[in-house]
């Protein structure tokens, strides 16, 4: 199985620090929020019983699911971004560029309009189906064009197409439904439950195991398709497996957390500076930094303003755009 010797040395220390930071972040983030909860209360609840039913509810039904879903969602988005960037050889690749968010948006729009009273189940399911629908269309068109390099451009085109259908439906429909869809698209961890954590965590584990299995093949793509083929890699099959995997994990996250942009784009760029560009360290690093990042963004979302929660996607997009300007500034200085 996976030999951890591969990640020793300088990277080993970085990973050890990242694991400690992640664990500490999980604990600290559980104490932050509108209800005052101390470290002692959390310890008491985890090892014994909570001091009050109210505390029991806040810790077990709100804080823990929220922090854990934030962690695995961040892990999944960052890993999907890192893999997409490596397999498409495009540093700007992001899971959302497949039209996943607009596909999920269309699904959510239809669910809100058709089944307004069944939204706990119908909305995430419809969003998931919408996201997959968009991915299938993008793959289908790229296959027809016989050029997987056009995948991201096709994604952008399909994204606009599905977005315009959603906007048309919303324009003709109920303004209340419009508000709900827009709010959902901004991304939030307010309504997550432990069940969502299990589901997203399972998808993230499947993704990580597949990537660990295929890490050498993915590395080979970094020198181009021809070089990878000469090393015995079936490039088209590998690319299809990995793209489908990224789409599935992102669609699951989008279905329960809404649109959280820029994590998949931003985190791998930071991690490459820390641990290098090869797949194993990049994925482990992206999972840890991505998870940690989203946990803290959610802390900010629930504590920055009194009595109001900021949608998490607004914060990730704001940080992401500043990050990109910073990268451009740095490139200008060095290049």
């Amino acid at each position, binding site marked *: 199985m996976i*030999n951890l010797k591969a990640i020793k040395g300088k990277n080993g220390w970085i990973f050890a620090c990242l694991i400690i930071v992640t664990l500490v972040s999980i604990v600290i983030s559980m104490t932050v929020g509108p209800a005052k909860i101390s470290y002692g209360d959390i310890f008491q609840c985890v090892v014994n019983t909570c001091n009050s039913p109210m505390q029991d509810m806040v810790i077990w039904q709100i804080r823990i699911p929220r922090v854990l879903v934030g962690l695995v969602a961040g892990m999944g988005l960052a890993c999907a971004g890192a893999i997409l960037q490596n397999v498409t050889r495009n540093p700007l690749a992001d899971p959302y560029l497949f039209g996943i968010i607009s596909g999920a948006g269309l699904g959510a729009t239809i669910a809100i309009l058709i089944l307004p009273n069944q939204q706990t189940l119908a909305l995430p399911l419809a969003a998931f189906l919408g996201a997959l629908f968009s991915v299938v269309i993008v793959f289908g068109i790229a296959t027809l064009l016989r050029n997987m390099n056009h995948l991201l451009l096709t994604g952008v085109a399909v994204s606009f197409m599905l977005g315009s259908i959603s906007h048309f439906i919303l324009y003709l429909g109920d303004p209340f439904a419009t508000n709900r869809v827009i709010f959902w698209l901004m991304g939030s961890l307010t309504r997550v439950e432990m069940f969502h954590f299990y589901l997203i965590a399972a998808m993230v584990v499947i993704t990580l195991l597949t990537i660990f299995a295929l890490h050498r093949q993915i590395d080979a793509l970094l020198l181009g398709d021809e070089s990878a083929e000469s090393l015995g890699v079936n490039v088209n099959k590998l690319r299809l497996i990995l793209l489908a995997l990224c789409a599935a994990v992102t669609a699951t996250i989008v279905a329960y957390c809404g649109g959280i942009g820029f994590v998949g784009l931003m985190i791998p760029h930071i991690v490459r500076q820390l641990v290098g560009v090869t797949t194993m360290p990049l994925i482990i690093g992206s999972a840890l930094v991505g998870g940690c990042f989203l946990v803290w963004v959610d802390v900010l979302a629930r504590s920055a303003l009194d009595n109001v929660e900021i949608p998490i996607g607004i914060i990730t997009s704001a940080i992401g755009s500043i990050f990109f300007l910073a990268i451009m500034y740095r490139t200008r200085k060095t290049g």
Partner: protein
Amino acid sequence: MSHLLSVGALSWQVDKKSILNDISFDLTSGDIVGIIGPNGAGKTSLLKCLLNQHKNWQGEITLNHKPLKQHKPHELAQIFALVGQNSPPIFDLKVYDVVRMGLLPYKALFASDNHRDKADIIQALEKVGLADCKNQFFNTLSGGEQQRVLIAKALVQKAKILVLDEPTNHLDIFYQHQILQLVKALNITVIMTIHDLNLAAHYCNRLLLLDHGNLISNNSVDKVLNPETLTQVFGLPCYRDDDQQNHVPRVYFSPMPATQQVELHNQKQGEHS
């Protein structure tokens, strides 16, 4: 003598246009074979058919006494190592990571590198004289150094045949000789496409001359570098003046007036259409 690679009546077409026509030749262990010919002669297409990267070719290719199509991709990668025209990496790959890719055909899923793999990588880098650069970024090396790193990757791949696609492209004269001297010193079987006929004469022991997908000549360097044949194939007057010091054939071409070039070009096109 047994042949490592045997090609019989190989043809390849794209959209009913013939790219390779009835090509037959053998490759024996220890050969250094150069594929020469003008642009569009089918040199790189021939290499891609050998690597099974072009799938719908016709004819017979036997590799290690087994038909090429019966080899699994990882088995092919254990026989052929390609040093080709790579796309420049978009991320900062280290030299060590590039050479490490050569381990791929021997590794199972999930497998990581053991001590022997690491020793092999360092040894390969030492052979190409770049052991000190293992932590440098591949992108920051010169063209010649990058080619040497790719040769080190091929050594880690432990392939029986080294396939080089225009290995001296974009290199200055010093690096052109350095790369080919290195290749020759490795003592393995080599098949390469090469534009510079005099370099080919220096380092190859056999040449395949291609023109419009046809194999015009398959023989020793001395016989293939025939001025009359080369004048016919390249469309410019060719002269031969052998290098007496190194006992190597040497050819040069003299330019002709532009109008005459156009006439000859049209005549050649007419012959092949």
